């Protein structure tokens, strides 16, 4: 082991001074604020501590991915809010990417209508404040959707109403075995595709790994049903009358209009930025490359798929990561339309009921930081995996 790296170069000591000073001032500033907050809180009779997290929350939440009611703790309410935030962010990121890539490619289309439509889309949705769009989608949805007794009926198993979109609920037995079968299928598929690649590269033999993969993806779960003891039942929502004019669906799962409106607003808005990234990425690839690809006889789709996109991705991913982060943070606008995300449930209701402003706000900030860091490190990893590898 070479200890030389660990000893401080005396001649360079001076260069350390500004850094130490900066660090010191940050530490001092933080302790100053903490101290000050402590003093002020003492003066005003406010206690500090995280004990409240185990207390009974005593408020209900309308939409939850896990079992929750007001008799659960504040910590559980936090989890409900966090999962709701993650849910709408994942849905939002999925659709934003889908719309963004489509529109981004559309803007470069040689078809005038497609290009113009894409441009108008970007200009309109990028320039209207997100909160306004959110209200628009929410109240437009509420106005447009019918009351439960006049629900839009999808084959008698699913109904769209102003109170939500009711879909059948899956009732599983031995669900974990089903999950294992999927995992097993994924492992098998990776194995097959690795093998196929090797065969192709070493012996020039073509193995239809894609079709084999599809067959595997179906056979493994199917086996879990036939021999693994997995069963699946559906609970179909049914209309119930609750008074002369009040109806509602019972049973099934309700996708609430707040979630639909929020996911819609977030993805439509963020898609405009992603579209611009995609456009910039594609334009960033030299014309010569496309011409070269065309000259060896590749079709337009092949050029896009094999030549342009792999390189463009490296330009597209970093700014798009930013957009994913923005979308996640923007999901906190949920409170405006009563979607119970972490801000509404925890930094809103729980804060109000407990008065633990400092504790709750720091937990919430820490949570957002953690989510953001996870997204960026995932995207960095992905970016590295698509980066050009020197062979």
């Amino acid at each position, binding site marked *: 082991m070479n200890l030389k790296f660990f000893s401080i170069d005396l001649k360079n000591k001076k260069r350390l*001074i500004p850094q130490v*000073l900066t660090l010191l*001032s940050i530490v*001092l500033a933080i302790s*100053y604020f903490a*101290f*000050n907050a402590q*003093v*002020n*809180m003492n*003066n*005003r*009779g*406010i*206690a500090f501590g995280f004990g409240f997290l185990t207390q009974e929350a*005593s*408020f*209900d*939440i*309308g939409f939850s991915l896990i079992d929750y009611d*007001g008799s659960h703790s504040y910590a559980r309410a936090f989890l409900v809010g966090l999962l709701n935030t993650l849910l709408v962010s994942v849905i939002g990121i999925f659709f934003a990417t889908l719309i963004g890539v489509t529109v981004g490619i559309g803007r470069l289309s040689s078809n005038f209508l497609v290009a113009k439509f894409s441009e108008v889309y970007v200009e309109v949705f990028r320039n209207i404040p997100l909160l306004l769009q959110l209200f628009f989608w929410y*109240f437009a949805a*509420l*106005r447009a959707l019918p*009351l439960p007794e006049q629900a839009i009926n999808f084959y008698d198993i699913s109904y769209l109403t*102003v*109170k939500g979109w009711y879909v059948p609920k899956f009732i599983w037995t031995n669900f974990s075995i089903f999950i294992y079968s999927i995992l097993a299928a994924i492992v098998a598929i990776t194995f097959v595709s690795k093998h196929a690649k090797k065969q192709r590269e070493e012996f020039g033999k073509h193995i239809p790994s894609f079709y084999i993969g599809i067959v595997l993806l179906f056979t493994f779960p199917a086996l879990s049903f036939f021999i693994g003891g997995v069963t699946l039942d559906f609970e179909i929502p049914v209309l*119930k009358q*609750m*008074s*002369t*004019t*009040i109806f*509602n669906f*019972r049973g099934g799962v309700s996708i609430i*209009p*707040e979630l639909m409106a929020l996911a819609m607003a977030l993805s439509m808005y963020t898609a405009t930025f992603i579209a611009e990234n995609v456009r910039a990425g594609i334009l960033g690839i030299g014309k010569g490359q496309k011409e070269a690809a065309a000259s060896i006889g590749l079709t337009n789709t092949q050029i896009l798929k094999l030549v342009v996109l792999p390189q463009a991705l490296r330009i597209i991913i970093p700014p798009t990561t930013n957009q994913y982060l923005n979308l996640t943070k923007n999901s906190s606008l949920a*409170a*405006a*339309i*009563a979607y*119970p995300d972490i801000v*509404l449930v925890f930094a*809103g*209701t729980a*804060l*109000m*009921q*407990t*008065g633990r*402003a400092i504790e709750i706000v720091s937990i919430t900030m820490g949570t957002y930081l953690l989510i953001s860091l996870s997204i960026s490190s995932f995207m960095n990893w992905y970016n590295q995996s698509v980066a050009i590898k020197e062979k």
Partner: protein
Amino acid sequence: MLKTFKNWILIGFASLILVACQQQGGGNSKKSKTLENTQKAGFVKCGVSQGLPGFSNADTAGNWSGIDVDVCRAVAAAVLGDADKVKYTPLSAKERFTALIAGEIDILSRNTTWTLSRDADIGLTFVGVNFYDGQGFMVRKNSGINSVNDFQSGISACTNTGTTTELNMRDFFNSKNISYEPIAFEKADEVVAAYDAGRCDTYTTDKSGLAAQRTKMSSPDDHKVLPETISKEPLGPVVRQGDAVWEDIVRWSLNVMIEAEEYGVNSSNASSLKDSENPQIKRLVGSEGELGSAFGLDNEWSLRIIEQVGNYGEIYEKHIASTGIMPDRGPNELWTKGGILYVAPAR
């Protein structure tokens, strides 16, 4: 260069620490820091709702009125001599306590329910009650629901987040074994819009709030408030904990308005009652005793409140009764007339 830079940083820290120590000293002196700051600024910093007719509501010109607003106006009349010297900050239910604790406002007068946990736990002090209320439910008239006993499992209920309403609602539906879908918005306008659009079957909040919000609906006559009251909601002004003098000023500004009604003193006759026979009336209009000096005010503080703002009966009539929100005073009648308004004597 580096040396002077270092010195500056050192000086900076030293002063920061000094400031911190100074702040520690405050809080337990006899003088009122809030009163001093208010007099220096020339206006009372008052937190109100984002628009609740009868309680705190701004007209198109931005002038605030309502019985909650009048508490702040009374304090301004008492400490600044002019009831109009108030700066209003509209707050959602969720923001209100943070705004008060952080010092953004000095009085919170925003249909806020006095509860043990709010009073004891979070650095707040309730000074009195200016409206006795209770939680109720609003439904569509054609719903066929005539009482809370007609509610059935699966009902969806809209309300405001960060309120006592949210908690009472759970207690109520649980006790009746009814499963329900709560939908809690931050702003009252959105609650009303969602209820209006049919997103929820019932709208629940303080009955005064229901009556007031109903006036804002697209067709008020299509809705009705159910007869039952499911909770006690004593609404009143709140101040920060730790400034006992300021707390007293706000409490007694409210009490004076109620007591003035009790003794028949109102905005038009107050100054002519200076030579009244009744010593209690004389104390209210400042011609006997030295009540103001107890919190460092002159002796006419209460006269100004009555003259510029009015007694409780006057402000109730003006904001709540004549506007049709709650024509009947119910519990908010004086104790001498069958209500429960009963305040400690100003003497």
